[in-house]
């Protein structure tokens, strides 16, 4: 792949990939590392991908797998059975409150959502991938994506109601890697 083509690929995708990585890793440095690692893998292997149109999906999938690869060492799991679904009514005040928050505060609320729901929820909000692509990226059926989305939204709404608590709740990826817990 030419330097120009690689540069154009980076320009086209590194911003949404960074937003996805920031949601997963919960801090800028690790998010940057994840994005760099993803493009590094592309530069060494990904250029062999036959269909260039699938590059975006490939990049999101690779980033998520890289995140899981490191994350898996901790062996931390979340029960998805005990959480309420998100189908309750949304009050107008909730929308106004969210509108009044800045982007970083909303990202912090998103980062406070349990990891198993956070990944599909972030891909939902980034609006870059179709449901089939999201399911392929996360390697789960579409029904599971929707179920996790519903529960992730419930958590996010809860976090948006009390944004001041999210900073304490969110433990950056680099700290959890060192064995600290949230």
């Amino acid at each position: 792949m030419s330097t120009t083509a690689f540069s154009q690929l980076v320009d086209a995708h590194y911003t949404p990939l960074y937003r996805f990585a920031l949601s997963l890793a919960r801090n800028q440095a690790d998010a940057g590392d994840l994005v760099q690692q993803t493009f590094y893998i592309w530069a060494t292997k990904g250029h062999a991908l036959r269909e260039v149109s699938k590059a975006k999906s490939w990049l999101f999938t690779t980033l998520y797998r890289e995140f899981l690869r490191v994350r898996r060492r901790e062996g931390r799991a979340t029960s998805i059975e005990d959480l309420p679904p998100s189908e309750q009514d949304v009050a107008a005040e909730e929308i106004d409150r969210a509108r009044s928050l800045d982007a970083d505060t909303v990202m912090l609320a998103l980062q406070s959502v349990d990891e198993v729901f956070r990944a599909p929820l972030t891909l939902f909000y980034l609006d870059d991938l179709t449901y089939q692509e999201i399911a392929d990226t996360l390697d789960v059926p579409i029904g599971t994506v929707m179920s996790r989305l519903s529960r992730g939204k419930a958590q996010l709404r809860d976090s948006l109601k009390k944004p001041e608590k999210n900073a304490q709740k969110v433990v950056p990826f680099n700290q959890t890697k060192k064995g600290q817990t949230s």
Partner: protein
Amino acid sequence: MNNDEAKFILSAYRPSGRDANDARFTEALSQAKQDPALSEWLAQSQALDAVVMKKLSGIVPPAGLREQILAGGKVSQKAPARSRNVGAWLALAASVLVVFVVSEVWLGQKVQAAQHDYAEFAVNDMHNGGHHPPVGEGMEETLVKLASSDLHFINELGLSFEEMKAGGCRTVKCGEREAIELCFNRDGTWYHLYVMPHKKSRGPLLAKSKSYFLAMSDSAAAVWTDGDFEYALVSPKGMNDLKALAG
């Protein structure tokens, strides 16, 4: 399907319209059209989703990340590959290169012509169209963002076509295609940004191309794409001003 099931499905329906052609949502959407309570629930749920989407689009990567990625890519691409049949591989590579170069030249000319047409249309429309700033709800933040001196236009816009339409932006026809025009003031100068959905039939052509610049009398236009949309930004202050924004 009862309303709880419909809500479960519709909570995954994105306000951007990306899922409009996804058959998984058809039945639940149809039910929402006939049930005012469900319809109201969907509207509120989507309003909240739209706010979160908009906020996330305001997150920008840290300065220097792009350069680090590109530097990493160069280093990894320089790793030598080994092969027993170097001659055959070289011959094959040479043939592929010839085809590639010919294709690139031909495709490059097509892309440049399309970019030129879009830039020319944008400059002409700026001079002849009836402009007005958007007045609808939710456009204030967009205008503030566009006016910010920190914003570099390439890859940082994160605009929503539907929101701009709903926000009262002017719709114009560029050939057979629909574009939206957004007028904004930055440091006392009125700029005109045209946005239209990326034509998928052009494949990755435009997405792979660089920004295209066109100067016409005192004005200048830059054209680029992020893969989802094709943008044309017109400055009444000429080329140097524009290159600082979108170069």
